[in-house]
Structures are given as C-alpha cells and as structure tokens.
C-alpha cells in the first residue's frame, strides 16, 4: 500500500556552481509539509526540480507511483499545481486568471470554457475569498489578494499535490495567517497534500506536520516540527543563537532569537555571578 504522494529518491540536481545531492524525501498523502532552510541552501532549487523546471541529474521523483519525468506536461499539471513566489498577471481579470487553472483539462480544440469550468473556478474563488474581486484586474489587487487568487487558480487545477514557494514572504501577519489558514482548511477538509517552501520558522512550526530542513544542498534533518526545530539544529544551520520553547497555545515549538546586545548582557551577568 503506497500512501506517499511525493517521493524523492537519491535526487541529484542543480547548476554548475551549486548542487543538491543525496536528497530523499517522502511526503505522505494528506500531509502538510514545509521546506525550510537559510537563503542559498537549495530550497528553491529543490522546488524547481519538483516542478520540473530544472532537469535532474540522477535519482528520481515519483508522484504516487508515476515517475514525474515520464509524465506528460498536461498530466503533471493535472496532478501538481504550483503557486510561485512572484505573481505576474498584469491586465488579466481575476476570474480569467483563475480560469486558466482549467487549461490542463482542455483539449487543443476547446476554445470556450464549459459550465463546469466556471463552476469549479467559482467554488475555489469563494473558498479563497476572491470571488468578490472577480472582475478586477490582477494588477489592481494587493499582494495578499494576488496570492489568494494564485491559490484559487492552483486549486482550480484540482491537483493532488499543491506546491507553494514562500506564499507568505511579502505579507503582513494578518495576510500570512489568513493564507495559511486557508491552506490548512483545504488540507484538513479536502485532504489536499501541501508542500511549501517557507522562511518563517514559527509559521512553519504552527502549520506544517512535517518539516524538511535543507542546508548547503543537503537535507540536514527532516521530521516533525518538534524533531526539527531544536535549538541545536537551528544554530547549526542558521549560525544564529536561538532559544526554542513551545507555544503556550498550540504546544508547537516556537523559536526565539537572541540579539547580540542581549547575549552580551547575559554573558556579563553570568560573569558577575561567578565573581560573587
């Protein structure tokens, strides 16, 4: 019985000056997984390998039991939907933009959307709360609203796996929480598998049930947030002094940072205590 939606085996890929190697990842069906790691650690390279934008050198990526490399672009788009970091849609109305998620299901000769296409896109626009700006242009929306529209478009592809590249990176805390709540709801109510690259360790901890910590082109550790977000791992990878404690509300690990000033004060205090 295979319950893995995405399984990456001994993946090696990258650019002449930067390589990912020995990557093994298994994402279970219905899970909400996060890829974390410092800038330049290989998160986006890994993401691009999974989305098929970047060729792979060795190893393989399986979607369910199908090899991603041999899957046609159309079938791939029916199974994996991708929300990129930057959304450039310009002068397209929000509804037209979301409807583009139906393209993988259209034949070359179907020039008009079917009633079903409109129904499906409407459903996901309502779910993401974007139906109210359906006639506005994408360029007229704020960053958070564009991100929601992009998620609606991705859902309209009716994928089994939703991939997101830093969906909350330019947003304020209201929109960050709103977008992640929408994703969590989709994950729990519809059983949609989610894999996202995310920078914010605390958001990753709160929302993901599984984290993959990437560093220097390799996987440093993967597991539950409790296993991954220990201060040792974070200090190893990010070269920053932190303290982790559990969030009093959710019980999930939360990461607190220590500024240089605070560290100095602590050191002085400890030195004073030793003197006494």
């Amino acid at each position: 019985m295979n319950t893995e939606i995405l399984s990456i085996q001994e993946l090696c890929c990258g650019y002449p000056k930067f390589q990912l190697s020995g990557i093994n990842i298994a994402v279970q069906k219905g899970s909400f997984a996060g890829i974390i790691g410092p800038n330049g650690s290989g998160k986006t390279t890994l993401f691009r390998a999974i989305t098929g934008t970047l060729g792979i050198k060795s190893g393989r990526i399986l979607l369910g039991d199908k090899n991603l490399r041999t899957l046609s672009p159309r079938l791939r788009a029916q199974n994996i939907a991708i929300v990129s970091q930057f959304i450039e849609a310009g002068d397209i109305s929000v509804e037209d933009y979301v409807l583009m998620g139906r393209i993988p299901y259209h034949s070359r000769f179907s020039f008009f959307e079917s009633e079903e296409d409109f129904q499906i896109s409407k459903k996901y626009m309502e779910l993401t709360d974007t139906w109210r700006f359906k006639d506005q242009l994408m360029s007229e929306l704020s960053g958070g609203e564009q991100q929601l529209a992009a998620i609606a478009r991705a859902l309209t592809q009716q994928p089994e796996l939703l991939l997101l590249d830093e969906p909350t990176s330019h947003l304020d805390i209201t929109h960050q929480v709103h977008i992640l709540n929408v994703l969590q709801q989709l994950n729990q109510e519809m059983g949609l598998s989610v894999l996202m690259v995310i920078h914010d360790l605390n958001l990753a901890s709160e929302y993901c049930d599984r984290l993959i910590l990437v560093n220097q082109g390799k996987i440093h550790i993967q597991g539950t947030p409790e296993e991954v977000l220990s201060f040792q791992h974070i200090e190893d990878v990010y070269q920053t002094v932190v303290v982790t404690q559990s969030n009093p509300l959710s019980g999930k690990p939360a990461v607190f940072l220590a500024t240089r000033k605070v560290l100095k004060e602590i050191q002085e205090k400890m030195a004073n205590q030793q003197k006494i």
Partner: protein
Amino acid sequence: MQKKYLQWITYLSGLLVLLIASVVLSLSVGEMNLGFMDIFSILRKGHESMEYTILSQIRIPRVLLGIAVGGALSLAGILLQGVYRNPLVEPYTLGISGGASLGVALAIVFGLHQLIGSFVLPVAGFAGSFLIIFLVYTISTRNGRVNIQTMLLTGVMISFIASSSMMLLMAITSSENLHGIIFWIMGSLDEPDKSLIYITLILAFCSLVLSYLFVQPLNALRLGEEKAKHLGINTDTTIKLIFLLASLLAGVCVAVAGVIGFVGLIIPHLMRLLFGSDYRILLVSSFLSGSIFLVLSDVIARTIISPNELPIGVITGIVGGIVFLLMMSRASFRTLKNNG
C-alpha cells in the same frame, strides 16, 4: 451564454461590417469614381464595360491583397508579441524584412528580373526571408530548447547584417537599379500576378485558422514561460511553431507587397487596448483590423495626390502612428484615473 462571449460576437460583427464598408469604399474610389450601389450592378452585368474591367482587373485584386497582407501582418505581429512577451516586437524585428529586401536587391542588381521575368522578385524576397528565418531558428535552438531572449537578439543582429548588406548593394549599384530597389522596399499593393494574390489570401486565412491551435498556449504564456509550463503547456514547441508560422506569413507578405511597416506593430497594440489580453479574441480581431487598416490606407495612398500614388508605407506610418498615439494617451489617461 457568458457575457464575455456575447461581447466578443458584437465586436467581431462590428469589425466585419467595417471591413465590408472599407472594401466597398476602396472599390468605388479612384481615378474614376463609381457609386457604392453601382458596383454591384456593374459586377452583375459583367464583361463588356470599362467599369467592369477596372473593378475586376485593378481594384478587386488590390483589395484582396490588402485584406490578405494587412490581416497576415497584424496576425504575425500579435503572435510574435504573445510569444516574446515584448510589446516592441513586430514581424520585421527578427530580420524578415531585411532578408527579403536583400534577396530582392540581389535579384535586381544581378538583373534577374530582366532575364527571367518580374515574378523573380517575390521569389527572391521569399527566399531571402526564409533564409533569415532558418538562420535565426537554428542559431537560437539548442538541444530542442529555445531561449526567447537569445532568439530576439539573434534576429535583431541578423536583421542589421541583412539591411547593411543591402545598403552596400545600393551604394555600389547603378542608379536605375537603385530606383528599382527603393521602389520595391517602399511597398505597394499593386501586384500584377493574380495567382500570387490568391496564394497570399489563402495562406493568410489558413494561418488564421492554424493560429487558433495555439490560442491556449498563448493565453498561458501571458503568465510567463515558467508558469505556462506549470499549466502543462509545452512552451518550447509552442514558441518554435509560432515563430515559424508568423515568420513565414510575414515573409510571404514582404515578398508579395514589399516592406509595409507599422501594421504588424500598431494593430496588435490597438487590439490590446480595446479588447484586453485574451488571445481568443485578439487573433481574429487583429486579422480583421489589419485588413481594414491596410485597405483604408491604400484608399488614402491612391487618392490623396491623385492621379499620382503615395507609397502605402507612408500612410500606414503617419496615419497609424497618430491614431495609435491618440488611443494610447486616452488609455493611459483612463488607467491614471483608475489608479487614483
């Protein structure tokens, strides 16, 4: 039925009516003016009258060529702009006009048109543009993949080489040949060979139909190449095929009618301003508007200093440019207002 589709049908019917009106206008105006209504009765009666000869031998072929070339050039323009996602691209950007001109200039300099016959000029023009298309395509394709930016740059460079070589030819050739080259470059809808006109017309319409096979990839490419790939579009194949289709179309037009500028740049932009960015409406509306624009420009070119005739490229440039600037200032005024 969606509101959007009804709107499109309205636009298209409007454009069709305009096209018919400009065709009738073009048939009736000239050295000998014919009444709008008379045209039909002259055509029905047929043969003997002088009016019939003027219509069937001069004006109808000219209008047909205008429809074909105008439609084909602006279709090529909108296709290339869609693929390159660059508003400055037009059918001639990639060196197609340069290649065709060079081919024709060579044919004239070597006197081939006197040796073999005047049909050699369009053939040479097409050969020149085809050579350029082939060069741009092979240089910018690597392992079956194309890089759009490389392709654009390659095209622009090859275009420079071709037009400079042509200038070299013009500098060293006799003044009689020079006159022939310049006359050809300026472009004209006056084509003596009727079968060439029919071939162009059929090719233009077939290309319009063919272009609709790429309408979904074109729509997806509005989001960028990478995101189009994410939507399951085979972008490499799409880019290559559209490039070939649009270039061949432009090559045929240049070979038959010379270098008629601005149509392939202005009309696609105008359509975007009017109808938005959905290629389902843009492709056909660009074709129809290009036809209307060229037929009307030809009317102006023929009548403004009658009985002499201005090069049609002059009219398309001046009239088209001014109309476009007016439209754009109105549109930017509108967006300014919308943005607060």
